[in-house]
């Protein structure tokens, strides 16, 4: 090949490449999507989109949609989320992330991935985010149907609430009480289920705050729910520990044996079936 012919071919390629890029539909919905949270993964499954990778659900896979079986799973670790090399191998066009993994997002963007955060911290947010994910992946109509179904299930789950017990909802374990406030996912679920949060209208960044044990003793909650870490076999031990904590043992919840330890992640993060979570909280913990 002569030098002049090679130059001509290179020039032609340089002209043609931008033209080809323009020819591709600019707003085309991404088809290769990675979903890092169970909510986004389940939403995609409901919308008929099979993600190229999903985040490993911390604490178990108890509520993951069965249609996601076989989808490669990415281990997640604080604060970056997935290993960016493992993510890059899956070549996603869109990554549905969460604020907790924000530190890792610039690296994803540098690799050409579009990143959107979606992690509802309220029951109402589930419906909003369902619509948003639908429009991001080009399944607006399916998302409308899903959101309508979720809304109906929430309304059904909230029917006939008779009592509004006061509830202390705490996260993790430790010698201090780390309360989930009304602007946390768990706090909002308890409110939707008819519980009155002991922390009232308190809000804090992230939805959690270390709460004074004096306030717990003085306000004496009807129900204490702990969302712990650990194996299910450990739960009775944790309930006993919490019931006998200094001061707490005098609360109404401890006296009347309404100190519960929740299993699974449904009070820690959103799924696509908030109606079921609300129903579970009413049945298992609030009895209302």
């Amino acid at each position, binding site marked *: 090949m002569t030098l002049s012919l090679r130059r001509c071919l290179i020039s032609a390629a340089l002209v043609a490449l931008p033209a080809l890029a323009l020819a591709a539909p600019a707003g085309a919905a991404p088809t290769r999507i990675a979903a890092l949270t169970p909510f986004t993964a389940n939403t995609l499954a409901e919308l008929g989109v099979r993600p190229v990778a999903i985040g490993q659900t911390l604490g178990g896979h108890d509520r993951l949609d069965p249609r996601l079986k076989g989808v490669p799973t990415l281990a997640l670790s604080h604060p970056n989320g997935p290993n960016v090399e493992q993510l890059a191998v899956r070549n996603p066009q869109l990554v549905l992330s969460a604020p907790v993994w924000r530190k890792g997002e610039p690296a994803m963007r540098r690799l050409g991935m579009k990143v959107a955060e979606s992690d509802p911290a309220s029951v109402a947010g589930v419906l909003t985010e369902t619509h948003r994910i639908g429009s991001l992946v080009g399944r607006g109509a399916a998302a409308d149907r899903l959101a309508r179904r979720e809304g109906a299930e929430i309304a059904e789950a909230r029917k006939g609430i008779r009592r509004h017990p006061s509830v202390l909802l705490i996260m993790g374990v430790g010698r201090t009480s780390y309360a989930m406030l009304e602007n946390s996912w768990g706090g909002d679920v308890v409110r939707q289920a008819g519980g009155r949060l002991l922390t009232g209208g308190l809000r804090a960044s992230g939805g959690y705050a270390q709460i004074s044990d004096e306030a717990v003793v*003085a306000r004496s909650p009807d129900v204490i729910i702990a969302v*712990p870490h650990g194996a299910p076999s450990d739960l009775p031990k944790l309930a006993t520990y919490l019931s006998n904590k200094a001061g707490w043992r005098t609360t109404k919840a401890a006296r009347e044996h309404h100190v519960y330890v929740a299993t699974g992640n449904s009070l820690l993060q959103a799924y696509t079936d908030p109606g079921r979570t609300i129903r579970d909280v009413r049945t298992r913990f609030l009895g209302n």
Partner: protein
Amino acid sequence: MALRQTSVVLVAALAALVAGVASLTLGAVHVPPADVLDALAGHADAGPLREIVLQLRVPRTVEALTVGAALGVSGVLLQGALGNPLASPDIIGVTGGAGFGAILVLLAFPSAVALLPLGALAFGGLAGAMVLAIAWSGPNGGAIGRLILAGIAVSALFGAGTTSLMVAFSDRVQSAVLWMAGGLSSDGWSGLSVAWPYFAIGFALAAVLTRPLDRLALGDDVAESLGVRPRMIRLAAVVAAALLASAAAALVGLLGFLGLVIPHLVRLAGGTASHRYVMSASALVGAALLLAGDTLARTVLAPIELPVGPFMVVLGVPVFLWLLRSVH
């Protein structure tokens, strides 16, 4: 003690007393002072107010006084024994070991959270023992440089262990964050009931060591000529400091600031490095500072409680900097 040192000790004692009264009367729930007195005297009716005073505030106040004093004294012991103004409980590996023990319980065995103080004590003691074994074995055993380097290495080892645990259980890290930030908890007497023998032995050893440490400050040769065995005194001081610091870390987490700064603050205020004065004043200032910081941390945004570490820094650093600037 000269008038200046006596004044410092009296002011520190008064500050500890005022902080103690504030700690018992202030909190997320308003308890009238008369009710506090009734509860303390055993005249209060059964109910939440009595529970708050007797089960939450009294143990927390005693815990803060004990831990604050222990951190102050352990700093004095280490700075005196090692002849190093930067020595603190962090440097002998005890804090790193205790941190590892506590995080291990919190993250790997959350159902055994009641054993947290024990775990912190066990690993704090183990780290201290490792440092001592390394520093006192082989040629030149007991040398200050060897002890400091062993402490740094053991701290790094346990620090790496703590980080590994946090990565391995990254979904549970939230439980560890507050402990690492340092702070007291309203956990009744459970912590002190485990840790009190460590405090008792540590304080007793410290009291015995005041005069030998003064002699050690004159240099090893002079100290030996005065009948003191420098290596033995150094070993005893490090053991006492390790006991006090690991017990303190078991109860309040990682609060290295107190052990480092308080002895300096006390020396600057009193104008002397006499251990009899520095030890007693450091105990009182540490107790007052931790108690005041804790009371502030649990009342300023009540019912939300903030970690005490930042409050102690806010209280202590301006005073320290003022002294540093004004004393020649």
